[in-house]
């Protein structure tokens, strides 16, 4: 939210242009206009998130449009990530043996 004060969101025209560039760059197609509109709204939300992350990165990292920019957080996690309960499966540290 802080960053939105300093970097205004793109206008609808700019947003649609960015979305069309995104679709072209990553060969994205959608099944119908409603779905495309839904993806546009997700894209807009993700742009805002990326902008906030970039601000937090203090200029060392760039965040922005990627091929995952039309996915919700839940979709991204479901399609690309896989929860790993690693900490519970990690072998416990051995306690020192008694002399």
């Amino acid at each position: 939210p802080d960053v939105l004060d300093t970097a205004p969101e793109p206008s609808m025209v700019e947003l649609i242009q960015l979305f069309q560039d995104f679709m072209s760059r990553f060969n994205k197609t959608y099944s119908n206009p409603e779905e495309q509109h839904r993806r546009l709204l997700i894209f807009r939300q993700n742009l805002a998130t990326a902008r906030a992350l970039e601000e937090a990165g203090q200029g060392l990292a760039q965040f922005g449009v990627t091929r995952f920019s039309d996915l919700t957080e839940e979709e991204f996690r479901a399609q690309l990530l896989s929860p790993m309960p690693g900490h519970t499966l990690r072998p416990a540290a051995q306690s020192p043996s008694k002399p």
Partner: protein
Amino acid sequence: APPSCDWRKAGAVTPAKDQGLCGSCWAFAAVANIESLWFIRHQDLYNLSVQQVLDCSRLQVACGGGFPWDAFTVAWMYGLTQEEQYPYIGCQSLCKSGHQAVASIKIFQFLSSDEKKLAAHIATRGPVTVGINANLLQFYVEGIITKNMTCHCNPEEINHAVLLVGYGLAPEKKTPYWIVKNSWGPEWGEEGFFRIYRGGNACGIASLPVTAMVHEGAFDAAIESCPP
């Protein structure tokens, strides 16, 4: 550990692969680990088969996630063939035998989560697989994911596996970072790689380090140091 290390400069890291819409990161990270270690030991750089790992692991739904040691177990039992012999299709299929194995491992080991020790291990032995909370990576383009961004990725919630291939210190603000190989293709991030803050278990990057140890040959001339 030396101040910096990048195994890509030694030619020890294959290009980043693309896991597609399959939760096979665990297999990609482990196979990438074996590829690099095999090169460091034998000077043969192979693209090894991730699909073989998916098909031949004991997991019933390999695209549903797993651990690098599931993949190491396959490499230990069968050895790994080349990618071109057993190409990636991004879903679980039947385990096919009869392919010639070109690389195998003798053991795998869990490493310390101490990032200084981890850096020393990477510099002297080679890349290491780790887990990470990858939520931030949905929007990553390039640069170093800094310490103060990591409140967006709970280190207790590991949901991705990747390969640490080196580390360094950025001149800007003297930021220490890890160089990490991902499995979302060479078009993503910095040619398939990303960099993240080193020293604070950022996004859980140091919480689950595991590596294979490859079989050695009698006449090997292993690469002894990581290029800075």
